[in-house]
């Protein structure tokens, strides 16, 4: 080591070359390692944020730099607080812009997608229906429907960014069921949500319920509900029993094959 130190001290060019060589060799070694690591991150859903030029235009230079500099979450949170304030002022247009930016910054944050969709499909749509500035009911309905679709689109994009999680599929299914009355599509989404190992047990039941409302799939739904019924007491919830009873009648299931469902086990509104 001393001869190395001595050479370094007496020959500055040698020292400079050694430093440059070390930096460049280390650089050359680590480049493939880093690009492999980057690929592994992307496969694990990291680094999915869309930090492109259009985002930069929307959130400004400082925000963009902060986002790049490792403070993406802080920028997203700051924008989210802005959205919250805009919500209190019912500025839906501004909110939507922010929702798009926030989800671009933090595409792996389920809450942003979920709540953005909720704001548009449930809150904005309700406001649209009651918007006295728009006199014609037909126009109000149109705006309301547009808001439903915006919510749906947000959830679909969220699902595309988070294919490994069930939550947004459940939210999408709920939106399809409650707002768009598309029971067939809702059934598909509930079923997909149910495939995840950490999904709650009610997903598969809800899928069956929605399927039972989907024209042309009554038989399929009936078989599924029967399977669930046969799984035991835990599954024999009022709604399931109600749908089962209804399908038994509409499908003309022979009496011998029907399950006896007493009235007191059905939900109150039945």
């Amino acid at each position, binding site marked *: 080591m*001393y001869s190395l*130190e*001595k050479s370094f*001290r*007496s020959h500055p060019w040698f020292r400079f070359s050694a430093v440059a060589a070390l930096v460049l060799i280390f650089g050359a070694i680590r480049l493939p390692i880093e690009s492999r690591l980057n690929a592994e991150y992307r496969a694990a859903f990291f680094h999915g944020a869309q930090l492109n030029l259009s985002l930069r235009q929307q959130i400004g230079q400082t925000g963009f730099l902060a986002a790049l500099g490792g403070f993406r979450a802080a920028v997203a949170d700051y924008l989210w607080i802005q959205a919250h304030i805009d919500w209190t002022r019912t500025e839906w247009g501004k909110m939507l812009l922010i929702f798009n930016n926030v989800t671009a910054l933090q595409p792996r944050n389920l809450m942003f997608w979920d709540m953005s969709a909720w704001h548009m499909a449930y809150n904005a749509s309700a406001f649209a229906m009651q918007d006295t500035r728009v006199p014609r009911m037909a126009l109000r309905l149109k705006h309301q429907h547009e808001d439903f679709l915006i919510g749906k689109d947000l959830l679909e994009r969220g699902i595309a960014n988070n294919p490994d999680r069930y939550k947004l599929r459940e939210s999408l299914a709920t939106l399809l069921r409650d707002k768009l009355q598309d029971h067939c599509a809702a059934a598909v989404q509930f079923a997909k949500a149910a495939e995840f190992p950490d999904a709650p047990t009610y997903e598969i039941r809800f899928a069956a319920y929605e399927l039972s409302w989907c024209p042309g799939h009554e038989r399929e739904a009936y078989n599924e509900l029967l399977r669930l019924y046969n799984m035991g007491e835990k599954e024999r919830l009022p709604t399931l029993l109600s749908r089962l009873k209804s399908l038994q009648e509409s499908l003309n299931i022979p009496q011998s094959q029907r399950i006896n469902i007493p009235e007191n086990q059905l939900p109150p509104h039945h």
Partner: protein
Amino acid sequence: MTAISIQNLTKVYPIPFRRERIIAVRNLSLDVEPGQVYGLLGPNGSGKSTTMKIVLGLVSPSAGTTRIFGRDSHEVESREEVGFLPENPYFYKFLTGQETLDFYGKICGIRGAKLRERTAELLALVGLEQARDRRLAGYSKGMLQRIGLAQALIQQPRLLVLDEPTAGVDPAGSREIRDLILDFKKRGITVLLCSHLLSQVQEICDRIGILHKGVLVREGRLEDLISIENQTEIILENATPELLAQVNALLTNSGARILAERKPQTTLEDFFLEVTSSKN
């Protein structure tokens, strides 16, 4: 084995972006024997500090070698035997006196009870026991010199390199340091001393070397150097005036006892100025 051996030492500093260079030390050779107190003198810019730094391994020579007790200066081992007192107190001001000695002791490989014992001993030696727990930022110049001396001695070195040890110190403190150096000499510790206070150097050094513009212009035993060549001093006891006249002619024909025959001395200061001015 010599304590310090400097052979053909040259140090050149290139000036960036210019073709000229500064030659700080030019072909310097000198030896310091063990147990000597050696004074290295020279005006500002003469290469004293550079030489000292090279001996201590802080700077690399452009040519030549320096050795401490046979070991090359650039080897870290050579510094096991060296204690250095810098010109200004280059210590951490946020440490207390005690902590400073502990720190340097640990760097020298001393630990535990041995370290505690050694720091206590040194604080007593330099008279800083009362100020051991005060931060160096609150020390006076004299106190800083003393703690500097203590840290230089922490690993019981065989060689001490002292750069202006009494600069800025009051006469009493100065005298104390001078006495300490003489005490070191008695204990066989070699001392390399750089100083501008020529009267002090005259009091304690055995040998001196004078550097001027990087060149060793004079070197040797102090007594020899500052003697005036063409004069002889005779001290006579019981001499009569008649005898004085006779002595002039025939030295041996007298009843007087020659007690000492010494060359009269000019002051070191005069000699130094004469030598360096003639080189302009």
